[in-house]
């Protein structure tokens, strides 16, 4: 399957009545975005209003609480559309051509639950830890309708859809723009691949998805992934939004939709594809709470690795705590099939760095990449402008009593920063 991505560089975002991309500037009409979001009945029912803002790299701006980050894309050739099964109809994506508005993102923010977390600082020390400080962010702040308190499931769904719709609307602006740069991605069928690269090790990406409940879910082609069995994806499907995030907890190590669209493991494996390895496919597997599910899903990961005659696999994780058990189960079982693994995780080693980092361990997991210790404490200076609200900073993960100081600085653990210790290996942060 072959996909061409056409990158349209966005260096600035301006509000305007006319929607267009010109000289790497996105001109967009917030009212038109709003109208497009409200075309969805659930959004209409549960979101009272939206406000819009733009946050640019280097500005003294803090966005919080962040729900999701989404990169606008549009499918210009080939079957299906972006976010299949959610925004577009169900159709296998991942082939043809897709335009990407690179250098920007749609960020959804606003309260859902009282301990909503996720901070993006556009400058200062916090900016070093989140990849989203380097983007021009079109921020959508949602305000819930009356009575949402008793309908959190519906409201979370509405905000999730609203964000995807905003990204879809903006992606559409790039449909007829000539990309600044194009890049092709192709993986081969099993037999073709063996014939073309007879001497290269066969490698797959075992991609673990957070699937536990409200604010902890991931959707694949619109299906709640906790109700799925471990299965196979073409890596290019992820680039068209086959996987979207419904995960709002543990800001530092949740995978936003932006991460899924720009999966760094997919990118790194494609970079090595045909050179040092033969990139076969992605294997997606879930992280359920029910132990028999963990058992079954990890059995299937190992089984598929064996069936595909792999030599190696990279396993990535999402979230805190019990996924450590899935990670170790997957790794151990895959290694026992004779398939060599490297795994990507992050650590909760305590504020002093002295505690055991993971909730599970096995000697077979001998090649580990870490996204850093999420408990490490950081001081975030006051920002001139807050998009969203600081109301929750005192309650969010890693914040501890008094985490919001009277002078506006925040003392908290890295946990609070969106994407800080990403377990797909999106960042340079590590620990020893």
């Amino acid at each position, binding site marked *: 399957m072959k996909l061409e991505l056409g990158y349209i560089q966005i260096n600035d975002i301006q509000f305007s009545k006319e929607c267009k991309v010109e000289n790497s500037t996105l001109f967009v009409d917030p009212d038109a975005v709003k109208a497009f979001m409200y075309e969805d009945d659930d959004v209409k029912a549960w979101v009272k209003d939206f406000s819009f803002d733009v946050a640019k790299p280097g500005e003294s701006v803090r966005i919080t609480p962040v729900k999701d980050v989404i990169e606008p894309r549009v499918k210009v050739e080939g079957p299906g559309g972006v976010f299949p099964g959610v925004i577009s109809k169900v159709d296998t994506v991942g082939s043809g051509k897709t335009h990407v508005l690179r250098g920007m993102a749609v960020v959804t923010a606003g309260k859902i639950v*009282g301990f909503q977390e996720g901070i993006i600082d556009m400058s200062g020390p916090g900016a070093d830890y989140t990849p989203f400080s380097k983007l021009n962010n079109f921020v959508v702040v949602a305000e819930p309708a009356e009575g949402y308190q008793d309908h959190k499931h519906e409201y979370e769904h509405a905000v999730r859809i609203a964000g995807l719709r905003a990204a879809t609307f903006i992606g559409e602006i790039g449909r007829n723009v000539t990309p600044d740069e194009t890049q092709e991605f192709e993986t081969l069928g099993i037999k073709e691949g063996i014939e073309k690269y007879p001497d290269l090790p066969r490698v797959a990406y075992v991609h673990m998805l957070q699937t536990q409940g409200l604010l902890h879910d991931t959707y694949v082609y619109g299906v709640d992934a906790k109700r799925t069995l471990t299965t196979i994806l073409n890596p290019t499907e992820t680039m068209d939004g086959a996987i979207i995030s419904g995960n709002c907890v543990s800001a530092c190590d949740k995978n936003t939709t932006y991460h899924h669209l720009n999966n760094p493991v997919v990118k790194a494996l494609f970079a090595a594809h045909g050179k040092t390895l033969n990139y076969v496919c992605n294997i997606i597997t879930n992280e359920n709470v029910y132990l028999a599910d963990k058992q079954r899903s990890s059995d299937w990961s190992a089984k598929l690795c064996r069936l595909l005659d792999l030599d190696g696999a990279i396993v990535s994780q999402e979230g805190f705590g019990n996924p450590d058990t899935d990670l170790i189960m997957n790794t151990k079982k895959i290694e026992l099939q004779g398939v060599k693994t490297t795994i990507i995780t992050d650590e909760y080693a305590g504020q002093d760095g002295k505690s055991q980092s993971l909730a599970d361990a096995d000697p077979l997991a001998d090649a580990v990449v870490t996204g850093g210790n999420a408990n490490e404490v950081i001081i975030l200076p006051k920002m001139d402008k807050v998009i969203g609200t600081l109301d929750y900073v005192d309650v969010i993960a890693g914040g501890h009593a008094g985490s919001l100081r009277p002078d506006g600085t925040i003392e908290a653990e890295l946990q609070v920063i969106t994407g800080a210790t990403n377990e797909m290996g999106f960042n340079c942060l590590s620990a020893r």
Partner: protein
Amino acid sequence: MSTIGNPRDFLILTNNPLVVSCMEGRGLYTIEFHPEKSYREILVMARDKVYGGHTLYTHPLSGSVKPNETPYKSVIVSMVPHGFDQQFAEIMSNAIGVCDKFVPCTRQYTQQVLEDFQLIDYTLLCGAIGFDAVAGLSNKK
């Protein structure tokens, strides 16, 4: 690690009132409600059940909300012992280890935040056993 589990064998150990109000009497499971117990104490109860040979059905560290944030925890073990399992014991002991490494939180939560924490714990439990969380909420006692 054993068994898919018959709902009749589910013993839900919880300190979350929302689990009781949404799930009590709506399935074959049994709910043991311990409102006075802490998150950690629920884990310890589950661990002692596991040490006594009960099957552990759900992972004690369900969810990404940190143990020093949410006061609520629900864990499902078997009603009756089916034999000691080393793996369950290790999961329990690791979970308590994880709980202990977080800086204790002394913050006072508002009722709304407490209810949100209850909701998350409840939906994680629902997600684990395929209980319709939304239906449970709309039929809340």
